[in-house]
């Protein structure tokens, strides 16, 4: 495998890792606050559709993005209502949200556009364009560093950079701010937060809202950055891979970046079977690469490679008791 192919594969890795990363960080906020969320998939899907649909109608991807975030946050609100206010089963709520999004997006898309559950192709301002970082063109010819900067680091859409910036930001918010301290506390022992005079409900809703916002960004990137329009079920299990990455990362922001890059890399390789065959000298089934993130996560979950301990109060609705 030559250097340029490598750059290409890594470039694809970054693009494929971005929606995973945004969704993974979304899940991180939610689960750190003690709200399990297997509805990442549904929220991404809703946002992917709404962003593309509104962008197609208005011609502006930014207006679309707002709509997408709004949609994802509305679903997050339902999840909050079910799991915080009505103390329902968070897993069941997540399953319901995934189906709700899978059904509604197609029903509404069919009703709006009549194209068999997809939106029209997007172009121009209705998509997120690529951003060329300064001096990208100038230093492309420098060996090694030039292509890395110009072709790998530069030239992605805005949301890719937003996703990467979210990693340090998430870390800072969680570990260096009052909000982060309280958020982590409410996921570990909500009673401690409650008796300290802080609203458990408020904190958890805040976490769920952030989760909605980030899944909104993730979905928007899928339909307006990675691709040019919405198609039925376009998340294709990415919400679950993000969930897997979150477990893989043991609910930590920097680890999440690593896990998402790894899973993105596997997805990128699945697109280039020739590269694998060229490197390894034998054929590797695409299906194996598809399944690898899930298999790895099961191995991690099994605790054979380091133990993944979720936040202690995760999944449990908070009921006041002495």
């Amino acid at each position, binding site marked *: 495998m030559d250097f340029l192919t490598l750059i290409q594969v890594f470039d694809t890795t970054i693009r494929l890792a971005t929606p995973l990363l945004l969704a993974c960080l979304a899940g991180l906020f939610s689960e750190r606050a003690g709200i399990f969320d*297997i509805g990442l998939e549904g929220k991404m899907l809703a946002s992917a559709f709404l962003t593309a649909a509104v962008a197609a109608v208005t011609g502006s991807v930014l207006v679309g993005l707002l709509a997408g975030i709004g949609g994802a946050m509305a679903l997050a609100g*339902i999840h909050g*209502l*079910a*799991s915080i206010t*009505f*103390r*329902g*089963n*968070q*897993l*069941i*709520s997540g*399953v*319901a*949200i*995934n*189906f*709700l999004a*899978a*059904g*509604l997006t*197609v*029903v*509404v898309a*069919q*009703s709006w556009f*009549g194209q068999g*559950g997809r939106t029209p192709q997007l172009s121009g301002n209705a998509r997120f364009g690529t951003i060329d970082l300064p001096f990208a063109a100038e230093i492309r010819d420098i060996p090694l560093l030039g292509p890395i900067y110009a072709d790998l680091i530069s030239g992605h859409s805005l949301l890719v950079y937003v996703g990467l910036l979210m990693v340090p930001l998430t870390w800072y918010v969680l570990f260096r701010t009052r909000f982060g301290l309280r958020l982590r506390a409410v996921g570990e022992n909500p009673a401690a937060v409650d008796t300290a005079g802080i609203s458990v409900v408020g904190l958890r809703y805040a976490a769920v809202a952030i989760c909605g916002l980030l899944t909104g960004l993730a979905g928007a990137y899928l339909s307006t950055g990675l691709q040019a329009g919405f198609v039925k079920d376009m998340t294709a*299990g990415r919400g*679950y891979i993000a*969930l*897997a990455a979150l*477990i893989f990362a043991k609910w930590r922001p920097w680890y999440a970046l690593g896990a998402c890059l790894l899973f993105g890399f596997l997805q990128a390789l699945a697109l280039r079977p020739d590269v694998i065959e060229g490197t390894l000298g034998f054929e590797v*089934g695409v*299906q*194996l690469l*598809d*399944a690898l993130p*899930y*298999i790895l*996560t*099961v191995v991690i*979950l*099994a*605790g054979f490679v380091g133990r993944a301990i*979720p936040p202690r109060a995760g999944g449990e609705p908070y009921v*006041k008791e002495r």
Partner: protein
Amino acid sequence: MQRMPQWADVILIPLISLILAAVLSALVILAIGENPWAALKLMVEGSLGSTYAWGYTLYYATNFIFTGLAVAVAIHARLFNIGGEGQAMLGGLGVALIALFIPWPHWTLALLGGAVGAALFGAAWAFIPAWLQAKRGSHVVITTIMFNFIAAALLNYLLIGALKPQGSMEPATGRFPEATHLPTFQDMFSTAETALFRGAPVNVSFFVALIACVAVWALIWRTRLGYEIRAYGQSEGAAKYAGISPVKIIVVTMLISGGLAGMMAINNVMGEAERLVLNAVEGAGFIGIAVALMGRSHPFGVLLAALLFGFLYQGGAELALWTSIPRELIVVIQALVILFTGALDNMVRMPLEGLFLRLRRAPKPDRKTSPAE
């Protein structure tokens, strides 16, 4: 002291949840410019209006009985098996291998062999998540989700590789031999003069599903194992104290659950398609979640809920055929049912409990009631 009578818990709450889901679905239909009343009539007509329609409704219901029972059995042990989809896929693989590679003399034996094979493969797919939960504490919800995807990849691999007949372009196995074809309701109930259930896929598996309902009921409420499963589900500490092994209960329950999910394959793979195709399960594993929640994890409730979803599924297909409402509307309804009967249960329950409490206290109007806390 009970907050409300049991009939309210068993009948009223699911009914109210269902009505809420129906109202919201009607609003969705209204919002996309169709007439909900006309849509409902079309659905009833298309799913219950003829023996042909019933033949599809019951066919779908058969799938959902198996997957619903699978989820219900697991819920009794407080395990949430989201892996019905993957287990049913593997069940299909089991049926396919048994139908293709064993020369069966008669369909009765083939049905028996197919059911055993389907159950074994489904159970095997549930075994690893079960074992990991029991021994390593890995959350069964997450692992079964992962195993759904791994199952999809595995079937994909086999159906475009080893199991695909030579020369075929389609990712599917070859047709099963004649002797494995199950009698449909058409074969069983049509007379020379009147053809009933003509062309509908409902087949003898439906009766196997009914037997499964009775068997699960007996298992849960009449056997030691069922007693222990319920005991473990209610209180792990108490189960350990009594000498009930959590490892055994988790593994055995998940094996039964996976086996039931896998057994769905005798209906859709052996009874209907008569070969194994990609995505044969079509989400029935997930509908099992809605069915089990709606049916309050009781086999009889599961049966009723499965019939309801059979009606929705067939009705939805008819709707998609005759109107511009896509089939996915059914997914929306399914989501709403899961939401209201599962996650938002308390939203329905709390006001209802308050109502019953007030009714009971009505003769003593002087007592103050505090807001729910």
